[in-house]
């Protein structure tokens, strides 16, 4: 898409990380003046907008300017957290007062190891796009109309959204951390619905909204919807499968949450063991905040530079994501994967990517004698977290493949399956990878062919 319209109405601090850093430093100074022995301020300021369409027309269209100030206020081993959506003097004063009051009333944390030591985060290229920051509602409407036009041409109906976000992130601490950067992201996704229950899906995520090809996304989704008209029932059971990137992202996200967090390991609720072979040797999974193929970020919510992690190295568990608290317990440094305090769910890999293979998508499908092609998963949830057993449904394009050819669409199926077993069953990986939205970030993932996947139920026609 090349059409540009005007400028963003008001970025606030969203385009100025140094302004966000000045605010963070001011908050730290005020906290120290109020008696904090250590203080950390995280400032996230930005403008976000999203245009939503359904039944081939725009039905929701929103924009907001927001600021989030999060203060960790430490007195000795007493730790308090206060946050505010205000950046004015009265709001900051109230924020510090609330934090100081809490700190005076909480129990000491016996294993408090202090805020992380200062470590300069090198700027990461490719995290910001003026085209995204300047995108107005007209640009997003252009994108929506392009998707709708593709749907009209295919005789299907378009549903979806187009978002543009720009923010400044800064962290300042009493230990000398001074981290600041600006980030943008844009996402266009669409579900197409055809006659006779045919549905399709496609999405594109990019730092740069001008790189999003709305017409192409619209065509991909519409073609999938046309191909999935009149789905038939198929008996649940174990089938070889090809998983599109839109489905693979759920595997890596869920494993990131359940297993690759140091807190999950420390609480003995993870499958992770150093060197354990949990996936096929074909599978290498990394987390890299500097990967330009994803949505880059130089540092985490504690201002610690993001390290590259090899989470799965040729199928074996290797690295874990640490924040400062889990790192202190393990006697090591944070890897830069902390979330805003107070964070009880632990560190999280937010920039995952799986290494590409050498197959084309068509070759993956051609390798199925009799199996299923799955576009994406829906509403997945752990059934047994330590074994990474997940249940969920297929959605927006599930197809029966025979002798390497797609022969017909099938009605959506329920699966109940260990995602570790799924990765152990990987036979082939596509060369093409896509940046796909995830739980807390975006992941860069290929398509996969698996020797077996367990489908345990099917939806009804009603």
């Amino acid at each position, binding site marked *: 898409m090349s059409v540009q319209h005007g400028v963003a109405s008001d970025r606030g601090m969203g385009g100025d990380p140094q302004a966000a850093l000045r605010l963070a430093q001011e908050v730290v100074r005020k906290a120290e003046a109020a008696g904090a022995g250590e203080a950390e301020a995280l400032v996230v300021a930005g403008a976000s907008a999203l245009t939503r369409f359904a039944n081939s027309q725009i039905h929701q269209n929103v*924009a907001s300017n927001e600021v989030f100030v999060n203060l960790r206020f430490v007195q000795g081993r007493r730790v308090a957290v206060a946050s505010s959506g205000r950046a004015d003097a009265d709001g900051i004063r109230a924020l510090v007062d609330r934090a100081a009051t809490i700190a005076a009333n909480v129990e000491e944390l016996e294993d408090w190891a202090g805020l992380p030591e200062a470590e300069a985060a090198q700027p990461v290229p490719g995290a910001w796009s003026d085209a995204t920051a300047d995108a107005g509602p007209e640009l997003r409407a252009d994108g929506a109309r392009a998707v709708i036009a593709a749907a009209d041409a295919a005789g299907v109906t378009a549903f979806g959204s187009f978002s543009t976000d720009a923010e400044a992130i800064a962290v300042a601490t009493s230990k000398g951390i001074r981290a600041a950067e600006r980030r943008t992201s844009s996402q266009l996704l669409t579900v197409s619905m055809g006659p006779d229950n045919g549905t399709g899906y496609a999405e594109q995520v990019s730092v740069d909204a001008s790189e999003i090809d709305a017409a192409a996304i619209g065509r991909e989704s519409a073609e999938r919807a046309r191909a999935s008209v009149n789905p038939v029932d198929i008996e649940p059971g174990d089938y070889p499968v090809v998983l599109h990137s839109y489905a693979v992202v759920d595997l890596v996200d869920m494993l990131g949450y359940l297993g690759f967090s140091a807190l999950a390991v420390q609480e003995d609720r993870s499958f992770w063991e150093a060197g354990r072979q949990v996936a096929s040797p074909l599978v290498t999974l990394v987390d890299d905040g500097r990967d330009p193929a994803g949505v880059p970020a130089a540092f985490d919510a504690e201002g610690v530079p993001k390290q590259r992690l090899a989470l799965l190295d040729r199928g074996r568990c290797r690295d874990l994501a640490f924040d400062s608290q889990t790192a202190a317990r393990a006697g090591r440094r944070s890897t830069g994967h902390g979330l805003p305090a107070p964070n009880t769910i632990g560190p999280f890999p937010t920039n995952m990517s799986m290494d590409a293979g050498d197959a084309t998508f068509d070759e993956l499908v051609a390798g199925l004698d009799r199996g299923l092609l799955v576009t994406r998963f829906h509403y997945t949830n752990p059934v047994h977290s330590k074994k990474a057993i997940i249940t969920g449904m297929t959605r927006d394009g599930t197809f029966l493949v025979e002798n390497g050819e797609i022969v017909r669409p099938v009605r959506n199926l329920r699966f*109940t399956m260990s995602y570790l077993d799924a990765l152990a069953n990987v036979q082939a990986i596509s060369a093409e990878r896509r940046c796909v939205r995830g739980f807390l970030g975006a992941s860069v993932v290929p398509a996969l062919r698996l020797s077996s996947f367990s489908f345990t139920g099917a939806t009804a026609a009603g």
Partner: protein
Amino acid sequence: MRDLTSRALDTATALGATYADVRVVRRLEESINVKSGRVEGVASGESEGFGVRVIVDGAWGFAASHRLSTAEADRVAAEAVRIARASATAIREPVQLDGRPPANGRVETEVAEDPFAIPMHQKIGDLLAADRAMNAVKGIAWTESLYAAQREWKTFAATDGSYTEQVITHLGAGLEANAIEGDEHQRRSYPDNGGSWASAGYEFVRAMDLAENAERVANEAVELLSAPPLPAGTRTIILHPSQLYMQVHESCGHPTELDRALGSEASYAGTSFLTPDMLDSFRYGSDLCDIVADATVPGGLGTFGWDDEGVAAQQVPLIKEGIFVGYLSSRETAPRIGRGSGGAMRADGWNRIPLIRMTNVNLLPKPGMTFEQIVADTDDGLLFETNRSWSIDDRRLNFQFSTEVCREIKGGKPGRLYRNGTYTGITYELWRSMDAVGDASSWQMWSTPNCGKGEPGQAGHVGHGVSGARFQNVRVGVVA
């Protein structure tokens, strides 16, 4: 406040809006998290801002800001109008709202003990006492105890003369004991997974008797480790209220949201198998199935004075004697099926638009049998208690749930304990098989404080009143 709301509405009107509303919201939050006897997180949050929603040329626009000033009201109203004009380039049917009288008044949650006025150290002490009691049980790997409260001051004004003020307080608390042995991880929660929530004061937390229940909860978690897995089969099942409310939430609440049925959520949460042509004729459940969306019931997370479009709280029948009869609806969606809004529009803060959300979607109790009598009346069945995992397809038909506890019922008496109990089915097949519903003695409000919907994402606070029920021929034990 009227200066800001009037300015936003006047500016929007001057710039061409045929309708506009504005919400000014201040939200105060606090939370305490204790893990294994250690106060892991104590936090306090405050946010405030306003959002302006307009209709221009038959299309919607919305803009919001954290800066509360009349100058910013001008800028935000103008931005909302600009956004609406962009929307108007891609509409096929102009927006039309139902008629409703202007809303005026003030409502405030009744709170006996203001949770924000109770000293933090007292609330921490209550959690620590319970958490330490769980940790004292041999075999417990780790524990977690939580408390959280939220208060919103919300002012709504619209170009039709509506002006309402609401102060709504929600809070919740709960315990969780975890026992781990090898690959087996068992969790037991009290009163509910993620805590139990209400629209109330701290008296609600005191009534939980957290410390009194801590040791029992921990012992149950340890006991589950040595329980056998639930065998696969087709069984009579009884859903304890702590699981039944989630069944109502996922398989009745969501499919009766009219925006889903009309496709507005198709790109994210999905649609609904309950289409408007099925109204007043489709057999959703057995004759015992009466489900009502009730925004007036005291204590519910879906209880309020007016929704975020200024529609007064009301009771809307959704399922009547098993027949699908109504939707959760809004001023825009209801006229499309020839009805008036059921008042179900709520937004997650000042920076989000209102969406159709469940209010309190309640399965009404039936006179005849208490919940205990339903158990005693069951010769061979399974009792599922406390939700652990949930999943349902994008049209809300195929569901699968697992619970923390699954206990065999033999000859009307509780028997063997199973671990990792699951059950699965098709929504209308399950509800049609319901042959017993508990009476009012076990009916109480449960809650979901994290119901996800919309783009950008919103977390909804919704309530569910249930008393427990029995179902026949249900597939169980999908994964052992």
